[in-house]
């Protein structure tokens, strides 16, 4: 364990004023979901290439730096590589290279490449969404989508409120976790040991205070809310109202059209 927890990414949102940034968050959230599902429905390379081109277009239009591609893929890089290897080695077909009992086949490479590329696009689609849309406006969008469910008893407003509370307390608790790590290290707790028993002993004085602190924060917050007469979501007005304009509808239309084109690519492109 080295360095500070706080040096880790505190957020992926890149403030900006591009067309992608300004589109209504509800439309972006819906498009992002449709894109992710579309990736699993798309049948072959032509369709997948169109999906990739569409995403690249958004990446450029959103003014995102190129290093975000690497940053978006890094957490699952091992998994992506593993997927590719399993496919490349396990599918039967015409062998290209044979090493011992393993042989890499043309079919394997094709299939492995396809699945790997699809995974990469899936992860990058999230990067585009979260880098161009602030978590707060996405929470507003989420609440809007949940609102119809309020009729069947799903408390949409309160769900959104809990998400907002979670977003608000992540930096606070992260700082406290960091303080606790330092405090324990100063007392000689060594968390870089490879002995599971010693590690478990080191984790205890870190996790117990962190949980107790969290309960205390929750208690304080509840008292603060109750003393300000919090009484639920009914009849509350909002500081920010979501309003979709012509530009948003056009954006959604373009995205939907492109998605339709990609999904039907197999039909008119041939086998």
């Amino acid at each position, binding site marked *: 364990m080295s360095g500070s927890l706080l040096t880790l990414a505190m957020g992926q949102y890149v403030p900006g004023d591009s067309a992608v940034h300004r589109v209504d968050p509800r439309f972006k959230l819906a498009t992002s979901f449709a894109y992710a599902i579309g990736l699993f429905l798309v049948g072959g390379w032509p369709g997948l290439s169109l999906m990739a081109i569409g995403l690249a277009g958004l990446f450029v239009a959103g003014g995102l730096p190129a290093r975000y591609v690497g940053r978006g893929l890094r957490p699952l890089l091992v998994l992506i590589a593993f997927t590719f290897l399993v496919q490349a080695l396990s599918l039967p077909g015409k062998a290209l290279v044979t090493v011992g009992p393993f042989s890499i086949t043309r079919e394997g490479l094709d299939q492995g490449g396809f699945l790997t590329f699809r*995974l990469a696009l899936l992860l990058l689609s999230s990067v585009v969404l979260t880098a161009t849309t602030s978590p707060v406006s996405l929470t507003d969008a989420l609440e809007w989508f949940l609102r119809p469910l309020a009729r069947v008893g799903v408390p949409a407003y*309160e769900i959104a409120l809990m998400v907002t509370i979670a*977003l608000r307390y992540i930096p606070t608790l*992260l700082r406290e976790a960091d303080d606790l790590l330092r405090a324990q290290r100063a007392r000689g707790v060594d968390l870089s040991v490879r002995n599971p028993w010693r590690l478990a002993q080191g984790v205890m004085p870190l996790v117990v205070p962190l949980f107790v602190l969290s*309960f205390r924060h929750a208690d304080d917050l509840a008292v603060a809310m109750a003393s300000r007469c919090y009484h639920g979501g009914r009849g509350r007005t909002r500081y920010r109202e979501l309003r979709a304009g012509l530009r948003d509808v056009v954006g959604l239309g373009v995205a939907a059209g492109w998605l339709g084109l990609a999904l039907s690519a197999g039909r008119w492109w041939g086998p």
Partner: protein
Amino acid sequence: MAEGMVGQAESPAIGRSRVASLALCGVMAALVAVCAWVSLPLYPVPFTLQTLGVLVAGGLLGRKLGPITLAVYILAGLVGAPIFAGGHSGPGVLLGPTGGYLVGFVGAAFIMGWAGDIARRGARGQRLRGRRARGKASAVLHLAVGALLASVVIYLIGVPWLALVTGMGLKAALTAGMVPYLLSDTIKAALAVVLVRAVDRALVSQGLR
């Protein structure tokens, strides 16, 4: 739930209200997120506190608030807080190869929460009848079974999901998504039992429960 101690300046009315539940679920979701960030080096894969956070939060919050907290955690990740392991976020991650583990967390929190509820009720009953040791043993047993079942549920949803999304087949998914974590997950299940009891005691002594 609220065993407010006499003389503490805590309000039991707030402790059990809807506002208190809202605040608690929100803050605990943030805590699970923070746990996902802390990773300690252990062979063969890094030991993250993510699953541990899920189990302990579930065990402390009970079978109702536990799953809600984990659902809030997932939604916060969905809207772009970089809270999933590795600082990732967004719908692509939820629908991606490791999304099944995240969904499994909700089930794990439910099971662990249920075990926690039983353990707390049972231990209190035995304590009132003056059989402290028996209550302790029964609580540890319930929590241990809960922690193991909860870990199983995470894999039960996570591994087939991984196989499906990556198209790698169940056998490869087990190799990549379960076998390397078995050692650290056994440690985590045992640690979770100890931690739930330790935090519970600390909360009671500070009048927070």
